């Protein structure tokens, strides 16, 4: 199976390739991709250098252009697709129907992957994108079980790519507006969920507090880890029916996905590529995770047991789950 690895900077791209990535995905330093963080991503020159570095070592580069263009400003997204094609990207990862239609028409030779941001989670949706626009691969949302992925693969003719490690978003990706309500900025339009510009950490009364906009998302005793404040993983207090206050995670706990042990099952399900999340993480993260997963992929191909628990320290909340794949998670 192909290992698809994140790179937020040229240094991370080189680290991923050196650590054994078959493929690296990255984005331009603007609103056209869903990891539009300060100090992150690639200029056109950096992408050209990155493609050359990867290609000479037998690896491929994908460019994520997976936000939704705003009316009247679509040239920013059109230019990104053109430049990715001209600079030698193996494929572009797109989510927006209009942008996909434009790419298919203006760049007929360019390989198109359907981003997880398109939230295509059934054979009808995937086949529509394949038959209408020639999509060659779909990145499946993180809400499907292995059995459901197996069933989908029986009814489609395109490759499937699934997330196996990193931050876990279980919302209908590309459709979630939670962060927009708190910050006025949309992950789908502006390219960042819970933007750092609206995040504040402070020490108050012996506790660490993390806020997103005007909302207190986490309060933990000093010395305890404070997760990044996203609304879907927040810990909230509210009164119950009797007026007593109750505190808990309403949507998700701040845990990360680690599907290492499911790699053989995903292989059997017909999955073509395994994706690691984390373009916003450092080159140290990329090197450690890619090396571990390259070993796991090679073990799976030889029928050897999967290594486990090697990467717990790198996960958000210092805890991991197999997510929806094994359906033991709420």
């Amino acid at each position, binding site marked *: 199976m192909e290992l698809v690895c994140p790179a937020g900077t040229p240094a991370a791209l080189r680290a991923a390739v050196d650590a054994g990535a078959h493929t690296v995905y990255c984005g331009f330093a603007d609103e056209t991709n869903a990891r539009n963080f300060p*100090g992150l991503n690639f200029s056109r020159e950096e992408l050209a250098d990155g493609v050359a570095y990867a290609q000479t070592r037998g690896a491929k580069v994908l460019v994520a252009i997976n936000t939704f263009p705003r009316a009247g400003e679509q040239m920013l997204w059109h230019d990104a697709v053109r430049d990715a094609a001209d600079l030698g990207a193996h494929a572009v990862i797109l989510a927006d129907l209009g942008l996909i239609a434009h790419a298919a028409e203006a760049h007929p030779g360019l390989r198109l992957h359907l981003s997880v941001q398109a939230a295509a989670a059934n054979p009808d949706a995937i086949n529509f994108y394949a038959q209408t626009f020639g999509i060659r691969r779909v990145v499946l949302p993180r809400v499907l079980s292995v059995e459901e992925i197996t069933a989908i693969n029986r009814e489609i003719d395109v490759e499937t790519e699934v997330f196996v490690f990193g931050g876990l978003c279980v919302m209908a990706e590309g459709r979630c507006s939670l962060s927009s309500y708190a910050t006025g900025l949309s992950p789908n339009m502006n390219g960042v969920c819970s933007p750092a510009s609206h995040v504040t950490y402070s020490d108050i009364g012996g506790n660490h507090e993390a806020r997103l906009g005007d909302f207190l998302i986490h309060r933990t005793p000093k010395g305890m880890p404070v997760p990044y404040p996203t609304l879907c993983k927040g810990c909230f207090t509210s009164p119950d029916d009797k007026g007593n206050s109750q505190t808990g995670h309403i949507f998700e706990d701040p845990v990360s996905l680690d599907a290492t042990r499911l790699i053989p099952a995903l292989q059997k399900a017909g999955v073509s590529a395994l994706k690691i999340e984390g373009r916003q993480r450092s080159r*140290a993260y990329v090197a450690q995770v890619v090396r571990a997963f390259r070993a796991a992929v090679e073990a799976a191909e030889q029928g050897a047991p999967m290594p486990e628990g090697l990467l717990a*320290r*790198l996960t958000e909340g210092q805890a991991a789950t197999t997510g929806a794949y094994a359906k033991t998670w709420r």
Partner: protein
Amino acid sequence: MRRIATEKPAILSRLGPYRQSRFLLDVSDAPFLLLMQPEARRLTAHSRRAAAPDHDAAIRGGLAAFLAMLHGAEDGDALFFSGELQISGDTSAVLALRNALDDAELDLTEELAGISGQPLGRWLRRGSALVARKSGFILSRQEVMP
């Protein structure tokens, strides 16, 4: 700072508007506070006995964590999730700095050796390796072995 900014101009371009930010580096096992001002290419030490200098963002943690992050041995987010690093102030500025320095692949031993010239530089490299082994501190860039 001037030498690094000259040799690695991508640090300032990656910082974008945050090159004008003032970063307080509170290394808990150091006797002083450091104030980094990228735009001015200035790094200054300040007494802990006085009030902390004005700053836009602060990063606090042990020397081992700072050195491991700078040299690509440890992930900044992992150090943050585990509580080994804490941040306050302008979170965007901290992220921009972390990403800019991560991409720069700095090597403090090589920077010092480069300033020092040939004979002293050789001695510094050997001394740094010895101190790293004895102390456990990461004092030079960690390479990814293919």
